[in-house]
């Protein structure tokens, strides 16, 4: 389940007022979330949640649900 906090970080980074982001949402479905912008969202998430991701874990993300799980596991470590 995507937290409201993560949704807000993503929407803010993409300058979007609102967009229905679910677990299975993939980047190309969200306006402005392209391969060049992707890293800005990762940086924003790292900064907001005060976590530091490993490349391996970020590169295997398939959807926003995976990103939420990665944040949760990074915070608990």
């Amino acid at each position, binding site marked *: 389940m995507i937290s409201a906090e993560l949704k807000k970080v993503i929407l803010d980074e993409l300058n979007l007022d609102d967009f229905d982001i679910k677990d299975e949402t993939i980047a190309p479905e969200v306006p402005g979330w392209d*391969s060049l912008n*992707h*890293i*800005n969202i990762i940086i924003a998430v790292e900064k907001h949640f005060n976590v530091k991701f490993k*490349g391996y874990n970020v*590169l295997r993300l398939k959807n926003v649900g995976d990103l939420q799980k990665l944040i949760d596991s990074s915070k608990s470590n």
Partner: protein
Amino acid sequence: MFINIHPEKIPELLSFNQNDPLVFSTSLFLILFFGFLLVYNLVSKYKNTRIFLLILFSIYFYYKAAGYYTGILIISAIVNYYFGKWISLTENFSKRKLFLIIALIINLGILGYFKYTNFIIQIFADISNKQIDPLAIFLPVGISFYTFKSLTYVFDVYYDTLKPTNSLRDFSLYVFYFPNILMGPIDRASVFLPQIDQEPFISKEDIGRATFLIIIGLIKKVVIADYIYSNFIDVVFGNPLRFTGVENLLAIYGYTLQIYCDFSGCIDMTIGISLLLGFKLMDNFNSPFKATSIADFWRRWHISLSKWLLDYLFKPLQFQFRSMRLFGNMLALMITFIICGLWHDAGWNFIIWGALHGFMMSFAMLIQKPKLKFYNFLKINNTKPLKFIQTIITFHLIALSFLVFREHNIQDVAYILTQVIQSFHGQVFVQFIEQLPIIFGLILIGYIFHFMPAEIDRQIQKLVSALPLVGKAILIALVIWIAVQFKSADIIKPIYFQY
């Protein structure tokens, strides 16, 4: 296209000849393929026989173009299969990474030896001002394609996004699969492997789409690309100073269309042929000249390569350089596209071509925010007139970059552009149309079809699908007949065959 059959020449015709590979648009391929298809359909219910037959035909297909270098292909399949297995069986992260690095060294080492040794020797010779003879290295055809194809498997197993196959036979079929082995698309193991287990189901729509793609592919490759190449582009670019600026400019437009029709025509045939075998391959093109930016172009051109580079090279680099923010992104782009250029072939023109694309995209990224503000100020953002202008500008940048891509000697690029700027002679345009109406007509038709709404394409495809089987056969025969009228005496190998 049609050959006169002399029984005594059949063994020679069927054996390895690097100058006579089984290009899809040759009669020899069509005869062998339809014979194979017949047997393949007869045994389609028996999984093991079907797979065995497909592997055998694929190895023969590759052998016909590469001879004993087929051994490298077989070694590559075995190596990558076992590295996939070892990575998946290893829980220790550092060991997994080590296996990945060794697999990369082996794959890229083999590719590098065959493709870049002489280029590196030449650079050393130039730096040291010595004469060093190049080594006699035969470049096994398709090596860049099948190396990258196999690596998708190793990477995806490493990232744990793909469960490795337990069958060396299935993995070998993925690597050897003849439709896409020489020129792509660089299909993902994750999409291809599950299709091996399924009994081929070829729907009426699949046959219709396959017929459409084979017809369109033949027209693009033989009628448009080969004809305008041998009768116009090669003549002008062979000696650009003898021709006016108008002719040089038309040759630039012609070459841009040629490279698209040549490559995408072959890919259309590949996807069509593959559909008849029950395998769906990925699309490699999506009207690339409709792109409104260079980044958009790379989402539409050689999609299987650009997606490969994005997932396995750009994204890791981008992550690595993330502390540099925008400049990190730009650096990752430059490195990715220089490697993209080098992937095609070893040559300064390919490096410059890649660097040009990397630079254009980096620059676009740098000015993105002020540009958007400016468009919003003028209230033209996302409007049709703006998109039209963006498409025209992008197309010309692409056309210029392809000129660099084609010419191994950068001096020739300068000659061609100088002619366009200094000796334009606009009045020659009318004479050109009068004297070379077929060339002009083909270039015009090629571009009109390209810029047509995709819906028209779908409607034509529907019409072809609706034809009865006899109608489809007559249509293919008719297109082959037309292609024969346009065909030149020599086989013109596809441009991407050499990469």
